[in-house]
């Protein structure tokens, strides 16, 4: 029983409601949302601290005991993800102030960002499968509005596709929950896990449900056959929205796969985990092919999201302690560095006025700070030791090798080089070269203020890489719960 658990959901929700009343007072909206997101970060830090000292925190809403009421559960994994989400939310809001434009700000941009944070934090925290669906919908509703806000032609067109795909996947989610409920007769995730463990002969319908969940979460997380909507939809909105969606929404899908596959469907792994493994490797390949094929900076980073999702899924499908540790490391790293990269290419686009890599070069002459920040972000993404991508990828590959999956591990190892190539392509073609090109006037582009949130995120990512010894106890605590569902069940049901 701890009210701290609900605060990362409650603070953004309250902020969003308050901000709705002051839609025309833009400067008030800006500073209230910055303050509120800072407060969320502080609350999330406290939450991580509490969970690390006292173990899993739960809150039974309305004091109904666990299997009957709605329970919020904060184990280490969700606490860490809530913290990362809050940090990204803070950086993106700071970035939006100077880049999103007054018209969008007047039309409820900040409240909707807060609603998105409510949905994401809620999805990470909830311990009830139906409420996972509800928080998904909160998050998706906010993302529809963020995608279409501004109403340009391309945004309208891509939002229709995005909305259709997600409405269908939400229906599938409801169907999957219906099937699961008919078998186990409960909605509390810990209780579901317990009931599934009690079933003697695994009926085939559980595999069907597992695959249905994989389809639903895979659509949100953009894994291999279900990623088709993503490059188009994420291309349309302005950069801060893109950073939010790219860094947070896909990772909620991955978190849900990790949660359901480690808590519900761990008994009979022969079919589901094998499928997950194959899909993960193909996802990595598709992402890499996309990121080296395009000459558009936005497209390159968007396809890099798909690659990262493949790497994380690979670790989850191996399902050993080492690979899970790697996946959690990589998940947190990827959220931060993707947001940072999106913010950085946003600055590049603002300076050059184009996202086509063939149309600009030589940025290093005028913008050395931007160049080197981008360079650090790029090598962190590719996982050059000792930067942050390295530890996660190394552990994932080690886990894969340890359980005899050589082909997949080698593919991930080789594709890391291609990821490095794809981000270095931006560095070589965009930043290097002679200064024979006139960019927009340096004074008119207030890029320094935009650089601050990007530098904050890159600095966190660098500290995360260098301080992986310091982070390790937290991550291993998260993995311990993932690998031993009994800890989770015991904490929620309090037997």
């Amino acid at each position, binding site marked *: 029983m701890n009210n701290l658990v609900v605060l990362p959901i409650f603070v953004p929700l309250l902020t969003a409601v308050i901000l709705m009343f002051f839609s025309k007072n833009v400067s008030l909206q800006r500073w209230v949302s910055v303050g509120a997101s800072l407060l969320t970060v502080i609350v999330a830090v406290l939450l991580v601290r509490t969970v690390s000292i006292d173990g899993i925190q739960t809150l039974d809403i309305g004091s109904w005991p666990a299997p009957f009421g709605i329970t919020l559960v904060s184990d280490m994994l969700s606490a860490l993800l809530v913290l990362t989400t809050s940090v990204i939310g803070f950086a993106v809001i700071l970035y939006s102030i100077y880049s999103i434009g007054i018209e969008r700000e007047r039309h409820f941009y900040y409240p909707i960002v807060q609603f998105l944070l409510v949905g994401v934090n809620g999805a990470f925290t909830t311990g009830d499968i139906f409420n996972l669906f509800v928080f998904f919908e909160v998050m998706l509703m906010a993302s529809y509005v963020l995608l279409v806000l501004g109403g340009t032609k391309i945004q309208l067109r891509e939002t*229709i596709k995005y909305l259709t795909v997600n409405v269908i996947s939400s229906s599938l989610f409801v169907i999957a929950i219906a099937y699961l*409920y008919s078998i186990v007769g409960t909605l509390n995730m810990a209780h579901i896990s317990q009931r599934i463990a009690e079933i003697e002969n695994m009926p085939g319908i559980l595999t069907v449900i597992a695959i249905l969940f994989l389809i639903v979460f895979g659509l949100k997380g953009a894994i291999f056959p279900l990623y088709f909507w993503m490059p188009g939809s994420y291309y349309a909105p302005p950069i801060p929205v893109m950073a939010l969606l790219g860094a947070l929404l896909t990772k909620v899908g991955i978190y849900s796969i990790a949660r359901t596959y480690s808590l519900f469907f761990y008994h009979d792994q022969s079919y589901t985990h094998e499928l997950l493994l194959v899909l993960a490797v193909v996802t990595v390949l598709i992402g890499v092919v996309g990121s080296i094929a395009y000459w558009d900076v936005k497209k390159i980073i968007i396809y890099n999201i798909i690659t990262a999702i493949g790497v994380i899924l690979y670790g989850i499908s191996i399902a050993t302690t080492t690979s899970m540790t790697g996946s959690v490391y990589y998940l947190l790293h990827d959220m931060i560095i993707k947001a940072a990269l999106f913010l950085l290419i946003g600055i590049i686009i603002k300076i050059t006025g184009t996202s086509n890599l063939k149309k600009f070069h030589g940025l290093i002459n005028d913008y050395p700070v931007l160049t080197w920040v981008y360079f650090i972000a790029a090598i962190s993404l590719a996982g050059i030791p000792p930067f942050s991508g390295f530890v996660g990828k190394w552990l994932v590959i080690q886990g894969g090798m340890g359980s005899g999956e050589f082909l997949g591990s080698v593919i991930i190892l080789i594709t890391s080089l291609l990821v490095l190539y794809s981000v270095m392509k931006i560095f070589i073609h965009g930043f290097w070269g002679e200064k024979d090109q006139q960019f927009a006037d340096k004074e008119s582009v207030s890029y320094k203020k935009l650089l601050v949130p990007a530098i904050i995120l890159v600095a966190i990512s660098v500290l995360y890489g260098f301080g992986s010894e310091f982070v390790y106890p937290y991550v291993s605590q998260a993995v311990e719960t993932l690998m031993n569902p009994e800890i989770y069940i015991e904490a929620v049901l309090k037997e």
Partner: protein
Amino acid sequence: MEILMAILIGFLFASATYLLLSKSILRMIIGTGLLSHGAHLLILTMGGLKKGAVPLVNEEGVPVTDPLPQALILTAIVISFGVTALFLVLAYRSFQELGTDNMDELRGTDGNE
């Protein structure tokens, strides 16, 4: 009763799929509506149709019907109404801006600069 419900749900899903595959956005919206109604009926059936007394405290100890599916459907219906309303507004606005409601003309990634 269960078999009747199963047939009805299947019919709803089939119609929804047919409508979703059509080119007009308006038909697709109706399709998503039917799809979510099918899913709601599925929850109701899966949770068990009425088999016992009303779910109130009773002294006789007669078995009661599970009230949870109704609560779930209520939530899901509200959400699907919200999404459908947003979808209708979006379709209307994009008809105004893009001058078409034919999905064929919204294909591809052309115009992504």
